[in-house]
Each structure stands twice: as structure tokens, then as C-alpha cells.
């Protein structure tokens, strides 16, 4: 505190501005800061508690049957997985039905897909045509088990247009 600020006060503040710190003050300050550090570290440690170490979600992989179940030109919607499986001459591909904008479920239309929440529209390959969606619908990885069954991994995205050739 500057002397001019001290002047206006009825009682003189009892705070010394000693450059040298006494042993007592040093120990007191150390104790205060030790407490503060302990609390801060405790809080940081406790903050880890609400972060789930293991997500309770079920596996992203699911079997969809054999390639013969998907005739060329077909489109099969798996409502419980929010996924659609297409088959054309070039192969199979799985598209997510979850809008990339804010997670509503898009519905299939004749031109492609449209989202009810904020009016995003996608073409048949899932590319954004209209609305606020920031990117194309996800294309999921398809693989085949030795048994011949197809597996979709909804946790793995592949580039738009990458089809699985049977």
C-alpha cells in the first residue's frame, strides 16, 4: 500500500512491507500454501471420478448376415442400429443414419436423406446438399468373417465412396 493511500484511513493498516521475510512468516506462508496445494490437488484428483473409465455402450460391431441377403440394388434399413446397408454393382456399403449436425435420425427419401431437426439434406452417397450439417453421413467399415457373414463396425469410419467388394 502506498503512503498516500494509507493517509486516508483512520486506522493504520498493520501490514509491514518488509523486504526481508521473517522465519515465522516464512513458515506460516509455507503452511498456508501447503494446504492450498493439497486442496487443489485433491480437487483435481476428484475430478477424475466422474470421467467414465469404461463406456457402458454395447459393441459398435454387429453382424448383418451374408452377402446373398443383399441383392444388387437393395437398401436395407437397420432401425435399431440407425444404419442403412446398400448394395449396388460395385459392392456393399453401410451408411449411418445419424445426422452429422446434431445427432437426429435422418430418413431415407427418393433423392437421398433428410433430417427432421434442422432441415439438413444429403444425397444418396450421404454428401451434404443443404442445411447446417458440417460433413457427409458416416460410412462404416464392412468386413467379412471366415463364416461368410458380414460385420459392420460403426466405430470405424471409411472415406465416402469406399465400397466393400464381395
Amino acid at each position: 500500500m502506498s503512503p498516500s493511500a494509507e493517509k486516508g484511513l483512520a486506522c493504520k493498516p498493520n501490514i509491514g512491507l518488509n523486504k526481508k521475510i521473517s522465519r515465522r512468516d516464512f513458515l506460516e506462508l509455507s503452511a498456508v500454501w501447503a494446504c492450498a496445494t493439497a486442496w487443489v490437488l485433491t480437487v483435481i484428483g476428484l475430478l477424475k471420478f466422474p470421467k467414465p473409465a469404461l463406456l457402458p455402450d454395447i459393441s459398435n460391431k454387429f453382424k448383418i448376415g451374408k452377402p446373398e441377403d443383399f441383392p444388387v440394388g437393395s437398401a436395407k434399413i437397420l432401425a435399431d442400429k440407425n444404419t442403412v446397408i446398400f448394395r449396388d454393382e460395385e459392392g456393399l456399403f453401410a451408411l449411418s443414419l445419424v445426422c452429422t449436425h446434431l445427432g437426429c435420425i435422418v430418413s431415407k427419401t427418393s433423392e437421398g436423406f433428410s433430417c427432421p431437426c434442422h432441415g439438413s439434406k444429403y444425397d444418396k452417397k450421404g454428401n451434404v446438399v443443404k442445411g447446417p450439417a458440417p460433413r457427409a453421413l458416416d460410412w462404416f467399415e464392412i468386413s467379412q468373417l471366415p463364416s461368410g457373414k458380414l460385420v459392420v463396425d460403426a466405430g470405424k469410419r471409411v472415406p465416402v465412396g469406399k465400397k466393400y467388394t464381395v
Partner: protein
Amino acid sequence: MPIKAIKEFFRNFTELPKALRQSVVRHDKPTSDRARSQIIFGNIFLHILSTRTHRYSLKKTFTLGLGVMAVSSFIILLVTGILLMIYYKPSVEMAYDSIKDIHFVVPGGRFIRNVHRWATNVMIVTVFLHMARVFYTAAYKKGRAFNWVLGIILLVLTLLLGFTGYLLPWDQLAYWAITIATNIAASTRELTDVLNMTSYCDPGGFIKVLLLGSEHIGEEALIRFYWLHCIILPLALIVVLAVHLWRIRKDGGLARPDKLTEKELEGTPKDALSDKVFDYAPEKTYGLMCLVKGKSPAVSRGPEQTVSSWPHLVVRLMAVFMMTYAFICLYAFFFNAPLKELANPSVPENPAKAPWYFLGLQELVSYSAFMGGVGIPTLALLGLAFIPYLDRENQEIGRWFDSKEGKRAALFSFIFASLMTIGMLALTVKLGWLRNWFPHIPQIVITFINPGTILVLAFIIWSFYWMGKDNSTRMAALALFTCFLVAFVILTYFAIYHRGPNWEFYWLKSQWPTH
């Protein structure tokens, strides 16, 4: 013979009610100024009030009772919320059914839930209006800066309480509103995707997982929202509210002008001490004058213009509480809280609308998720919180719109913001936006150039224009605050009434296509 003790016992016995009363209430009947003060400072709940209140603080047209209404609805929310907890079961299988039980089976359950629902709306509206009142009367100045910040924190907590409560019924409305809201949190990916760093730095995704306890909305999310809604947020709100109220006293009561005319005090109560001029220094005080900010007690300074808080202030507090209470009860008697079908994760509501107080944001979100949901709200809240630090102009406080110049700045800003917002909405509805004109435009361009960001930019430019024109930071703040308030109201109105299925524009709800 122990006659004396027996006599004494019987006397004590007959005087028991009186002695009991005197041990609880330790003051006389409020017939003297001293006893009236004692009622206030001798009571732990009342002593947050000062023993005498300035007449101007009791002026109806000054505060409009908005802060008290907000606190009143919060008390009603606490009581009804605690009651609802008896029957509500926070589990995915039982939540929806337990709400139905409360609605159809529990005696008075429907009414209690209605009161809880509508009191939320009253609280949110009054909190917003209270904020506007404090702003327009410049009551964030002269040592009250931090209390304004606390007010902004309370606003955020109020909105979070509304939002977390929205999921609990586990109906379609709840499920899809929370889906949208948590994906808004994750929308920082719009930015990190462009920078190609989402895989190792995804703050939005982290918050989403922290909120939901999972990638999807399920049991984990429900229990976390329940925990936030019933424990964490109310507790935080009560603590901050206590500090907020306490600081009103420490900052010298409600804001008021230094010089008041008799006309300005018209209609306010008066008592024997109101006009008294204290021309002598008190003989004995317990003041801590070297620690207290502001001016020392009035000595030869003219009348203090205060009245005893008991009964003048307390009666008014109670009146505002009862009015709020009556309004909410009447509303709850006639209108039921909504409850849609059970949540269905594969069929979104169409349109899926957030609670009304977030619909202004949802309109912005329909241009860009990140800007509308994270960017602009963060900017607006930070801007709000820092108003008292950026505008420190010394001026008379406690009058609506300060002066003629203030009224003019607010009026012109009102007109400007209305025209800008309505114009922008009309343009967007009629012509669409960048993607309709340039189908292959990169997302990052839309993120930064969209109707929302353009509005914000226009408002900031407008505010600087007023700063230069009137050479005043207060006028700039008035202009900016008015613009944001007007835009918020118009956007909210627009999204409530003119957005239908697929977020398309409709003049009326009756024009919505049926399916």
C-alpha cells in the same frame, strides 16, 4: 417443607408458554424503532436485510420486484422438487412410468408437477428481466461489479437447472432435446475436424462423455442429469444466491441516485425518521470505519430518506412472493405440464425443439452448430460478465436508461436490432444461405460466415458507432445489450412459432403438414 420450590415450579409451569416465546423471540412488540430493528437483526433469515431501507428501493417502478419474484419461484421450485423426488425414479425403465404415476395416480401429483414446470418458466423469465432491469438502471456500477458477475453465474445455473430437469421425464421431448444439446457441446468438432486434430484434442466430445457418462443417452446420462439437477446445481445456486444477496447489503443497498427529488420518491412509504436530519455525531458506535467503503454516516447532510425495514420492506417482499405463488398456482391449475410418448432413440420428434428458453440458440444452431451453440453463447456470456469492467464511466446510477441520451441509444438500438434480426431471418428463409448458392463450399466458411455471426458483428459495429458518437462507454454498452436482448427475444419467438417440421418456415402452426 420445600414450599418455595413447589411454588416456583407451578409458577414456571403456568408461565411456560410465555417463557418459551421469550426465549425464541427476544424482542418486544414492534412498537418502537428499536424493537423494529431488533426483529430484523435478531433473526438469522431477516438479518440479510438492513434494519432501515431507503425509500427509493421500495419504489415499485424502480425494481418491479423482479429479483424477489425470481427468488420466490426458486423457493417454490425447491419445495415442489423435493416433493417430486419421493415418487420419481431415475432409471430408464421406470422414469417415464413414475412421471405418469405422479400425473395420474399420486394425490395432487399432477398439480405439484405442473407447479414445478411453470415455476421454472417464471424463474427464467424473471431472471432475464431482472438482469435487464439491473443493466438499464446502471446498477452494476459503484462497487457492484462483482455482484453483476455473480448474477450472470446465477443466470447460467438457472438455465442449466432447467436443461437438466428437461431430460428426467424420459419422453420424446426430453430425449431429443438432450440429444441436440449434448451434440451442441460436441460441436467443437466442427472446428477441430477442419484442423484435423479431433482424434487427440476433442474438448466438446470430452464434455459430452462427461455429461452422458457414455457416447449415447442412456441410464448413465439419466443418473448424471438427476444428480446435477437435484444436488449439485441447486446447491451451487443457493450458495451463489446467498453471496449475491449478502453483497447487495455490503454494496450499500440497491442502486439509487445520489440526489433524489421529492417527486421521485412519490408513492414510497415514509416514517418518523425518514425526514430527520442527524446533525450530531453518535456518541458511541461500533463501526469499523477504517474497513468500510463509501461515505460515513450522515451528519448534517440532510434527510436520510429511509424507513424501517419492518414492516415496510418485509410486507412488500411477502406481497411479491404471494403474487408469484398465486400466479404459478393458477397457471398450474389450468395448464398441464407436457408429457410426450416414451423416448424412442430411432424416431426423432419432428420438429425436435429444445425448451423455449434455448430456442433462440436453436435457430442459430440451424445455421452452424458450433457458432450458434458454443461460439456465440460463450461470447455473449463473457461479454455480459465483463460489462462492469469495460464500462467504468462515473455516472448517476439508479434511473431507468440514465438520461435522455440513454433512452435515445436504447430506442435506436431497439429499432436497429429489430430490423437487422427480422431482415436476416427473412433473407435466410427466402433465399437460404451460402450452401444453397455454392453447393461445394467448405464447412469452415459457413461456420464463420452465417446469419448468426453476421448479426453479432453488426451489433458490435453498432455499439462502437455509439461509443464514438456519444463519446461514452455506457452508451456503447446500452446499445450492445439492447441489440442482444432484442435479437434473443425475436429469435426465440421466431423459433417457437414459425419453425415447423424439418425446421421449415411456417406462418402458423395450423399449416404444418400432417403425416
